[in-house]
């Protein structure tokens, strides 16, 4: 798959502040989560890809378009939902969305049709003739999503899309993002400091810290990798059992007489361990199978603990996820 975003030694400086430093990589995931604490550079990266900031060094490309030299071509393919409240007061939602579509090059007649469609799609169909300043926070967020979608972009930047939403509204927004992702018509980059949002919507994760990519991985692969590590507590003699599980290709290290640590081969299911225990008439009293949550991955990245996925910065070239 052709890369959606390519970063080639991208650095962005604001005076003495190095907002982004030497970012490298080619990303082609369907839904990419951009994580990091406040000030990590998530929004700066999005803004740079939109051509708002001039790179100090390096380049960035969106669908092969250089964001400096071919900024308009790149922006024509992008939909952007900003973090902050963004609208034009005094306009009805449908007029606002129509204008945004026309600014992206959609002819007036099509723009009107698409504005109606986009508003129905995000659930604002019934209130599309209301003025934007009369909208609730959740409605404003959805109007922002509609304006980002109206011209049919190939890449959607969602900056803190669930900010200020109550739980049902957040759930609806997450559902929408997943729906958009699953259309296979658009790539989504979701920037958030809420791990739950990213975990629910994204396949790939890029973690930024102090302007650098400190980690990136495919979430599913990451989880699969972590399925191997288990800790067991047994009752009775474990020698036969250890021999049996080793026979199935498990790496097994007795911790105490009754406690084992083991690494399962990728193809082996956990239920096999129970089957063997039943055969050897051994009782498994406790099995600790800890899947790395996104929180663990995030904390590891923040603390600089190398994880078992590709370490960023050093990774170049295109790969399936991030």
């Amino acid at each position, binding site marked *: 798959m052709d890369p959606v975003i390519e970063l080639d030694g991208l650095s962005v400086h604001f005076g003495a502040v190095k907002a982004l430093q030497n970012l490298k990589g080619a990303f082609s995931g369907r839904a990419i989560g951009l994580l990091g604490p406040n000030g990590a550079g998530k929004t700066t990266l999005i803004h740079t890809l939109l051509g708002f*900031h001039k790179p100090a060094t390096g380049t960035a490309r969106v669908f092969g378009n250089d964001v400096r030299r071919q900024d308009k071509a790149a922006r024509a393919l992008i939909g952007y939902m900003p973090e902050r409240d963004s609208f034009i007061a005094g306009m009805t939602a449908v007029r606002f969305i129509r204008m945004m579509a026309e600014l992206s090059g959609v002819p007036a007649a099509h723009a009107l049709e698409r504005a109606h469609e986009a508003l129905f799609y995000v659930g604002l169909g019934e209130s599309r003739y209301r003025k934007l300043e009369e909208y609730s926070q959740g409605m404003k967020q959805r109007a922002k999503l509609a304006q980002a979608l109206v011209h049919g972009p190939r890449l959607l930047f969602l900056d803190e899309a669930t900010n200020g939403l109550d739980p049902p509204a957040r759930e609806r927004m997450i559902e929408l993002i997943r729906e958009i992702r699953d*259309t296979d018509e658009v790539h989504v980059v979701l920037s958030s400091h809420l791990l739950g949002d990213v975990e629910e919507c994204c396949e790939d994760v890029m973690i930024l810290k102090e302007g650098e990519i400190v980690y990136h991985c495919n979430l599913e692969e990451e989880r699969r990798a972590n399925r191997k590590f288990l800790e067991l507590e047994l009752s009775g003699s474990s020698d036969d059992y250890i021999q049996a599980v080793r026979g199935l290709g498990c790496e097994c290290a007795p911790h105490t007489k009754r406690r084992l640590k083991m690494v399962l081969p990728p193809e082996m299911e956990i239920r096999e361990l129970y089957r063997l225990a039943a055969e050897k008439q051994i009782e498994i009293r406790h099995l600790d199978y800890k899947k790395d949550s996104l929180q663990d991955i995030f904390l590891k990245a923040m603390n600089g603990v190398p994880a078992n996925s590709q370490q960023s910065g050093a990774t170049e070239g295109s790969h399936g996820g991030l």
Partner: protein
Amino acid sequence: MAVYEHTYRRYTGAVTPQWTRFLVVARYIFKDVFQSKLLVFFFALCFAFPLACIVTIWIGNSEIVEILETGAIDALDIDAAIFKAFMWVQGGCAFFLTLLVGPGLISRDLANNGLPLYLCRPISRAEYVLGKISVLAILLSSITWMPGFLLYALQSHLDKDNWMTENLGVLTGMFVGFWVTILVLALLILALSAWLKWRPVAAFMMVMIFLTGSFISLVLNGLFRTDWGHITNPFQLFSIVWSSLLGTEIPAGPPVPLAWLGLAALAGFSLLMLHAKIRAYEVVR
């Protein structure tokens, strides 16, 4: 399929030419502008003087009035001076129309962080400003050089002598003079609109710049016993430039090139203010 049954789909149809996008900005503003009854009334009022001028030109060329031999014919000689008076009146109208339309042009977008929504699309900062300027340019043109051209055409038609060729300088002078006025007024009000989110304050500041400039010029002229103090008076600078373009008597003040420079500085300063403020993101210092 009904609109509400559509799911997300990419737009794959034809797109409009890139160079027309700034007109989208202007078109949406026009609809809002003419929703104000005050503005519509004032806009209509701006055509009163051109209508009076049409009547004057007609009388000035009327055989009936000539037959009456009232001596009024001499007073109604249609020349560059008449067109300068026209420029003064219509220039004043342009100033007030700018005060009515201009202050909300950019502040409305900035008030609710709307700029990123424009600039994340294939439209540049320059095109955005061009879209806003074109609103004022079209409105002000319709009350300044356009009716001026009409008057010139009417006089050329009614006068059987070589008035048209003899006064070609009036036509070009009026055109260039009005465009200078439109650009300076439009850039200044847009800069104020970008920096002052409250519309009445932006309009007030515009008035204050012109009035304060006039006041300072009087003080400088008085203190230094010179006419060069008018360099701070935008009204006088316009007057000097217009006079030089129309070929009429140039009023007291700095030399013509300096008057041009003064207006260019005002426009340049406004551009710098716009450059600093029209950004897709807020600069936090």
